[in-house]
């Protein structure tokens, strides 16, 4: 799959998705017209075909491909499901409707196309992503939303009924949910000069209350744990389209560290997709060294934590100096700390002292 270097606007992207789906259908149609069993070839997503690309700074799929043919009795069912998923995606896109993975699973039944279980339907959606080179959000299939954004960014809706309408993302003090409507918006205007992504809802609210967006001229993004794909793509767009640097704050443990890493370099599961990563984003804390330097209240690492750290040591994404250093540090101090640990120095300490220092350090 070729890497689309050039960024395209949201509207154009929608057209592109529809064009691709149409081409996909046309190819199968022509095969059947010629009296041959329809077939497709797509990159293999098996683990031996997933490689880390240091240039792209993310996982990519190798040259191995798999062939699916309607001629094969074992293929014909998933093949039909795939064609149906394409049909369903094109209906959603054409009608500007959105859906969820769960919804896809149930909708299939209306076409006498029942999936065995949710896992089977999810895997077919992933197949469609692989064949088309677009992520499911492009096909209007969204996960359950839980992440949010707050800050001085004005967006312009493209969803039906709101076309042309603008909204400044500071208009609601809880932040605005990063849902289908927001992710399909065009960026109109911003005065912010950076993005701060935060793992936990408590700290996100604290930052808004402490007017971090003003003090640091930043857009605040709540990832709510591991960032959903839509949010990762949104951060990617903020970075690429608005040229904003991205700083990520997570808990000081291997899991928090990895939340930052997935935003930066993506996951192996999404090796078939692009534009979900933000390679220039920075993990600003909480580091293992911070636990020592700031004398943060901490908990001992559990066995699971330590096992996870050893896994990360072998992970090609963790080859950078910072990552190696912090992984080693965690292992040597055998401690972890949550973002809230800064509260021992008073409620505003994290914003007044820690944040400026870290932004400067990682900029």
């Amino acid at each position, binding site marked *: 799959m070729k890497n689309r270097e050039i960024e395209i606007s949201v509207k154009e992207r929608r057209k592109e998705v529809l064009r691709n789906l*149409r081409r996909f259908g*046309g190819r199968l149609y022509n095969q059947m017209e010629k009296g041959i*069993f329809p077939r497709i070839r797509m990159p293999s997503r098996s683990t031996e075909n997933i490689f880390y690309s240091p240039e792209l700074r993310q996982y990519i799929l190798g040259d191995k491909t798999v062939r699916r043919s*309607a001629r094969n*009795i074992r293929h014909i069912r998933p093949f039909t499901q795939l064609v*149906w998923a*394409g049909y369903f995606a094109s209906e959603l896109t054409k009608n500007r409707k959105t859906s969820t993975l769960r919804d896809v699973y149930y909708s299939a039944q209306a076409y006498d196309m029942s999936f065995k279980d949710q896992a089977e339907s999810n895997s077919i959606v992933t197949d469609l992503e692989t064949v088309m080179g677009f992520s499911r959000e492009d096909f209007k299939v969204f996960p359950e939303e839980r992440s949010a954004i707050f800050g001085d960014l004005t967006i312009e809706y493209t969803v039906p009924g709101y076309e042309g309408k603008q909204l400044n993302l500071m208009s609601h003090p809880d932040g605005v949910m990063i849902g289908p409507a927001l992710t399909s918006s065009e960026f109109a205007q911003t005065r912010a000069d950076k993005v701060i992504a935060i793992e936990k809802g408590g700290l996100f609210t604290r930052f808004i209350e402490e007017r971090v967006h003003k003090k640091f001229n930043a857009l605040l993004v709540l990832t709510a744990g591991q960032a959903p794909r839509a949010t990762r793509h949104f951060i990617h767009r903020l970075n690429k389209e608005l040229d904003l640097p991205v700083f990520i704050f997570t808990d000081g443990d291997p899991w928090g560290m990895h939340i930052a890493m997935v935003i930066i370099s993506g996951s192996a599961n999404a090796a078939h997709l692009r534009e979900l990563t933000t390679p220039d984003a920075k993990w600003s804390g909480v580091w293992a060294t911070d636990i020592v330097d700031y004398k943060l209240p901490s908990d001992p690492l559990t066995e699971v934590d330590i096992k996870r750290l050893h896994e990360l040591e072998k992970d090609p994404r963790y080859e950078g100096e910072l990552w190696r250093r912090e992984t080693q540090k965690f292992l040597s101090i055998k401690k972890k700390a949550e973002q809230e640990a800064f509260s021992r120095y008073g409620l505003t300490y994290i914003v007044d002292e820690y944040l400026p220092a870290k932004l400067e350090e990682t900029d």
Partner: protein
Amino acid sequence: MVTFEEISPADFFYRNRDIAGFTNPARAIFSSIRELVENALDASDLSNIPPEIYIRLSQEDAEETQGELGVGVYRLRVMDNGSGIPARHIPSAFGQVLFGSKYKLKQARGTFGLGGTMAVLYGQITTHKPVEVKSSTGTSKIYEYKLMIDIQRNRPLILDRKIRRNKEQWRGTIVEFSLEGDYFRAVSKILEYLKQTALVTPYADIKFVDPKGRLYLFTRATKKMPPPPKETLPHPYGVDVETIQRLIRVTECQNMVGFMQKHFHRVGGGISLSFLEFAGFIKSEDPKRLKHEDVVRLVHMMKKSKKFFDDVNVEKVGRLIKTAHSRNMLEFMETHFPKVDKNVILRLLLAAGFIKTKDPRKLRSDEVVRLVRMMKRFNGFLPPDASCLSPLGEELLETGILKELRPEFIAVSQRKPSTYSGHPFIVETAIAYGGNIPKKDDILIYRFANRIPLLYDEASDVSVRVIKSMNWRRYKVTPDMPIAILVHVCSTKVPYKTVGKEFIADRPEVNGEILNGIREVARELQKFLTKREYVEKERRRLTVFSKYLPKIARFSTNLAGKKEEPNIELLLRSVKKIEEQGD
């Protein structure tokens, strides 16, 4: 004080009726029906007329249990169209234990001459009523007897005797008597017995009217009967000392060579000679005692079989004899004509009168014992032939199974004749699948011996053990499948373990034949199941294609933004074609 007394055979069986299958009222009613039906069938086989058997069981004084008749007195009547019993034998046939026509060496259902009379005996001791027998061999007369058994003397007591004119040339036998029984507990076994009998006797019409007046009909499916068995002599491997003792008492033979030839199965002059030589029952003349005319006779005989003795003359042989050191003629011949086969020499010496064997009538008992022992050791006897056997044959077996089980698939096999301990036997096997065969947790097993269904003690039977020892997965058979296996062993002597004739004992030879027979039919079943599986798979394949291809066509038409769906008939046809080719 200890008293000693003698009991008659009738008395013996009266005291030990358990061993003949008359354990309790339920079993007794079953055994009575079974024994009389078997006698009836044997009588038809004898006359080679397709049997028609009518059985009526009516109640005289029985109590009701759960809507059925339970313990009480019943009257049993069995009628056949068989050969009939000659008038002078009727009283003994039903009034004397161990009297019968079946002690000869050929296959028959009954063997002991016991069953029919046991049923009558049982009826007598439980109801003290006489048995009524009517029979005709197709002559102008029908004989009617009322009999009881004098148990202590094992003699029939004739209470009444009538002779009627046989206007319609009826032939057959009717037996009717009262007995204590328990129909309620016997009914399922009786019906199962009749069904299996009908299965293995597809040329028989069997009607059964039960005490409630219900008629069970087992209609014949063919009039073809298997060829009747021929009577045979005992095979040397299968005889014991008692058999020889009896033979030497009655034989007219004056020498052992003739004795062996005349009284044993497949023993000719040559085999007889070489066996007697092997067993040490032959004496040949001392060469020294040969006179000139003896030498002339010997040389004359030698010249007759030129093939073996060329270049002999009286002078030469005479010279040899004079200088010989051999103690007897056999040794002499073997020393001087080493190239000639021993059998040829023996025949020659016998023909020339230089061989003496004993008079069999004068054998001492230690000699009889040695003779029997050597018979078992000698391996030059021919195996018994199977003309004394009457297997059902593959065609009739198939007819019977199709008639009673109506299966979807059937395979039958008749093995070549084989022997165990000098007794010839033939194993027939069949396997049936589907149709009316019920789905049980296990394979259904039908066992037959000399065309008798064996219903009791299944677990102890050799067939059951053979079937259980097989790896059925190899034949694609799983326990939940509706499968019936049939094993029929026929022999002049079925190796039963008990007098009740319920199960067959383990004999390596029988065991092996059963195993091979079942394997043969199991392989056929496997072929059938494999093919069915294939057809089923193809059918499913086609279903899958015809379900999904139209959907692919529909969705891609929509995706491509076309109006007309592509024609997928060609694709569907190509899938179908594969199925036809594979079929």
